[in-house]
């Protein structure tokens, strides 16, 4: 025969020992759970409200910007033309470069007879003067003509 009285007594002891702790933990978990759910719901309401407000404002601004399309087009055209003009102005001016080469040649008593890109051709009767003119520059060629005149091609900086 099974002794049920002993089993009941054991269970009663377990109940007595753990009921209070289990109930306390349950209440704590339930409170945390409720807080988490409430916070999530609040967060959702807040985020949705923020999003709706922002989208509404954005749509309104886009509409207002649409009304300013003509002004924007003028500003953009001006900006594009600034780029174009800046790039057209960017290249070096040749006038001052040529003038410097001419001045230098005249100082040495030489004559400029040719200019192709940056290669300047000078003519003179004295080779030493031509050498002096070419000082610091890249000499492309030096030729002595039949009439005894020297022709020198140098790359101008």
């Amino acid at each position: 025969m099974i002794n049920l009285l002993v089993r009941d007594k054991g269970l009663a002891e377990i109940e007595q020992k753990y009921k209070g702790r289990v109930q306390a933990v349950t209440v704590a978990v339930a409170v945390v759970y409720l807080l988490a759910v409430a916070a999530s719901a609040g967060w959702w309401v807040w985020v949705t409200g923020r999003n709706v407000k922002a989208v509404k404002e954005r749509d309104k601004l886009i509409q207002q910007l649409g009304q300013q399309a003509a002004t924007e087009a003028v500003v953009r055209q001006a900006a594009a033309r600034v780029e174009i003009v800046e790039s057209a102005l960017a290249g070096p001016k040749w006038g001052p470069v040529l003038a410097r080469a001419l001045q230098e040649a005249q100082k040495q008593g030489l004559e400029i007879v040719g200019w192709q890109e940056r290669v300047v051709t000078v003519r003179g009767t004295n080779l030493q003067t031509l050498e002096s003119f070419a000082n610091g520059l890249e000499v492309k060629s030096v030729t002595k003509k039949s009439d005894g005149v020297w022709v020198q091609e140098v790359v101008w900086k």
Partner: protein
Amino acid sequence: MGAGGSMEVKKWSWLAFPLLVGVMTVVSFGKLVAGPDQIWRKLRLNEGKAKATEIEVVKLKSKLDRLNRVDTAEQGKVLSELGKAVPSQIQPMLLIGEMNQAASESGVAVEKYRIDNSETRQALQVSILTEDAGKLIDWVNNMEGWLPLARIVGISYENDRAEVTVEQVWKESAASGTKPEDELPETGERVKSLLSKLGDFREIGTSSAQTKDDGAVNPNPF
């Protein structure tokens, strides 16, 4: 079930609440954090979207403020000034005018010239006669000082004759196909500096295009 069973159930009924909380917690955890719904993740994503929209709103507001402050008449004037430097339409007569005016001022003779057009630039090949290299340099300086801007891309000078290639760019004003969120370009300082640079250039009027050719032979420039 008898009275004994009922007593047994009543005795363990206090476990119903912990069990219910346990089940709810597990289910909620699945919904909120893990599982296919991942409500918290979605919320975070939505918050990110809201933040992005708010940033967009700030940008749009600032753009609208700037547009409201734009003086369209002033912008039109700027556009017109810049258009004098690089026209929006091809204007060969202006380039010819510049060439002739420069020749007249420098005392060189234009022997012949020819203009080739492309989609964005026109190239002028001009033969200049001068015994004096100084006058040629003067002509180059003059050409480089005109509006619309002309750029000397090649000079070949030999035996009192110079072959010069001059380029002039032109560009149509592009139609605007922008989105509202595209930022407005900031050009205030650049425009100021450009206009001040362009102030050093001389403007050739269309009337100058009819200036007399100094010995030029212009059978057909095109």
